[in-house]
């Protein structure tokens, strides 16, 4: 039983990582219909910025704030400078541009900060409490930050004029334009927001997995799966999806281990957990193509 709880806690903690990145993916998807494959690398780069500031002595939270601000600006700039001129290009060409961005961010991080593993100390106090052998303070903090982020975004989109304008631009660009919303800038803001969320995700991930240019390589796939299983058009769905994927992969390994303990025969283990988790996700998607919490799009002919 204890192991079950521990695996669940570990799954939730990993899930929080995926949820954060999935949230960033959704930000760009809802406004532009693109999956930004460079999102993970951008988040990794932002984390290096935060790390540099921490080394300079700013303290974690100030560093995070500054890196979020810087990432927001860079996100806006990338949309304006690189993607705007290509808005008529075929979708696959955009995918290639994302791959180009991924390669650039990845290698630039290596150039600037070298490939030597860096550590980021957890901003949460390392206290012992009843149950801390099941879930550590950083894991709890990470989950809390993810959920808080979701609520902030929810409030932003629901109650602020800017948030409402962004939603309008994403859902119905033509009408939004008519009521005076600058759709172009809203897309750029979407990119900025995504980059800022990515910066938060990176800063939360780094204390758990350590910082190097490959930090996000594996995480992006999980986040992608999470975003889709939850429904890529809804932030809440993406967060839920991230947690689901985190739990799923841990339970696959857990069950595999149980089977091996009981029967002595190895069927699945940690080597296969990602594959099995993905197969489950894809099966869900074939049965429910808009994700568990996504809205159904009606095709117009």
């Amino acid at each position, binding site marked *: 039983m*204890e*192991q079950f709880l*521990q*695996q669940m806690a*570990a*799954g939730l*903690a*990993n899930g929080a*990582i995926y949820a954060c990145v999935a949230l960033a993916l959704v930000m760009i998807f809802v406004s532009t219909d693109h999956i930004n494959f460079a999102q993970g690398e951008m988040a990794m780069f932002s984390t290096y910025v935060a790390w540099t500031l921490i080394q300079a002595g700013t303290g974690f939270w100030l560093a995070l704030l500054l890196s979020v601000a810087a990432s927001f600006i860079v996100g806006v700039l990338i949309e304006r400078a690189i993607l705007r001129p290509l808005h008529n290009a075929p979708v696959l060409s955009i995918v290639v541009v994302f791959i180009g961005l991924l390669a650039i961010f990845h*290698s630039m991080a*290596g150039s600037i900060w*070298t*490939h*030597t*593993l860096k*550590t980021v100390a957890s901003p949460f106090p390392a206290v012992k409490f009843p149950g*801390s*052998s099941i879930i*550590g303070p950083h894991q709890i903090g990470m989950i809390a930050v993810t959920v808080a982020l979701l609520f902030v975004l929810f409030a932003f989109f629901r109650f602020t004029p800017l948030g409402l304008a962004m939603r309008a631009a994403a859902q119905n660009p033509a009408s939004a334009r008519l009521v005076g919303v600058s759709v172009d800038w809203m897309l750029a803001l979407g990119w900025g927001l995504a980059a800022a969320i990515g910066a938060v995700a990176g800063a939360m*991930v780094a204390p*758990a*997995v*350590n910082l*190097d*240019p*490959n930090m996000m*390589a*594996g*995480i992006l*796939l*999980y986040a992608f799966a999470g975003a889709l299983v939850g429904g890529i058009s809804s932030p809440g769905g993406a967060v839920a999806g991230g947690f689901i994927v985190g739990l799923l*992969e*841990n339970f696959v*390994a*857990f069950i595999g*281990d149980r089977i091996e303990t009981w029967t002595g025969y190895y069927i699945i*283990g*940690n*080597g296969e*957990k*990602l594959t099995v988790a993905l197969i489950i996700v894809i099966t869900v998607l074939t049965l429910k193509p808009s994700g568990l919490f996504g809205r159904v799009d009606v095709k117009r002919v």
Partner: protein
Amino acid sequence: MTKTTRRSVIIGGSTLAAGQVIGMPAIAQAKKYDVGATDTEIKIGNTNPYSGNASSYGNIGRTLDAVFKMVNDQGGIGGRKINFVTYDDGYSPPKTVEMVRKLVEVDKVLLLFQTLGTPPNTAIHKYMNDEKVPHLFVATGASKWGQPKKFPWTMGWQPDYATEGAIYAKHILATKPGAKIAVLMQNDDYGRDYYNGFLAGLTKANEKMIVSRATYEVTDPTVDSQMIQLKNSGADVFFNITIPKFATQAIKKAHELGWKPVHYLNNVSSSFSTTMRPAGIEACQGIILALYRKDVADAQFADAADVKAFRAFMAKYMTASDYKDDLHNYGYSVAHTLIEVLKKCGNELTRENVMRQAANLKGFEAPLLLPGIKINTSPTDFYPIQAVRLARVKGEGFELFGDVLASEST
């Protein structure tokens, strides 16, 4: 003009010395060259992952390059400058094959040095031996690099993983005979080599001592789930076959879970500053590992001449890098081993002589090796470093204990 004269003087001098040592009459030794060597240059080829998943290892290639730059600044080897050609292979075996063929067939290097990774080296193993090009001191700890009969042109350098695994197993049998062992390993050839060596060390009769084994992929974000599984197996000994990123996570997680097994950590993650410090000094106390090089950040070696020289080198030639990264330490030490071989080659820079000299190192103390550990090779022994010392994390450093352990796997 003056330059040429000076060089010929140096060459004359070194031949003289070499001649006297061997006790032959001091006649100027005839210069003999294969492709890749001339009066002024020695061309050395290398591949390293400068991009992709394993790109952190690219620091080894960068260090080698810097060491050779330093050697050239100091006049080269026997007056010959080293031309070090290194290509990115992204740790992808087919790409390694292609780049190595370019090095051998187009760039025409004298020898190949420190190509990195077991799969990439496996892919070129046969080619190098068919082409009879020295394939020296490969950067992997697999045990297959020491087969002089079958592969006379390939030689490893570091203590092989299997031997190291066996040393831990023997230590467990000697100190904790009834142990229940849990193993965490990377799911690739590197993890497999350690694990197989470990099994061999335990011997068939004791294989049942392993109560749980979990693997991870390099793309996994964390190994938390694996650690929970291992802890719950009830093991009281933990063998940790992980690279620094995951070693740190595993140590941290064991500490968080309140699991306190006797912890054996592989040498791959032996760097105090990239593994222990990030994991937290408290969590690392008592971890046992096998060492063969000095940790340059360890206070007990701060005054050693080789450590000082290394730090001066890092300060001058690799200003942007962190000297505490163990890969620089490794690259520096192995580069000096090759330099020793090339020095011994004198004016006979043929591929055959390079192999002959590489297989004739006697008690060579490469810089940064631990006291008591020496490099020995012979025509039948292609494992340059076969000794390690066990150490235990104590306070903010390593405490060596026991004798120098030499392996029997020749």
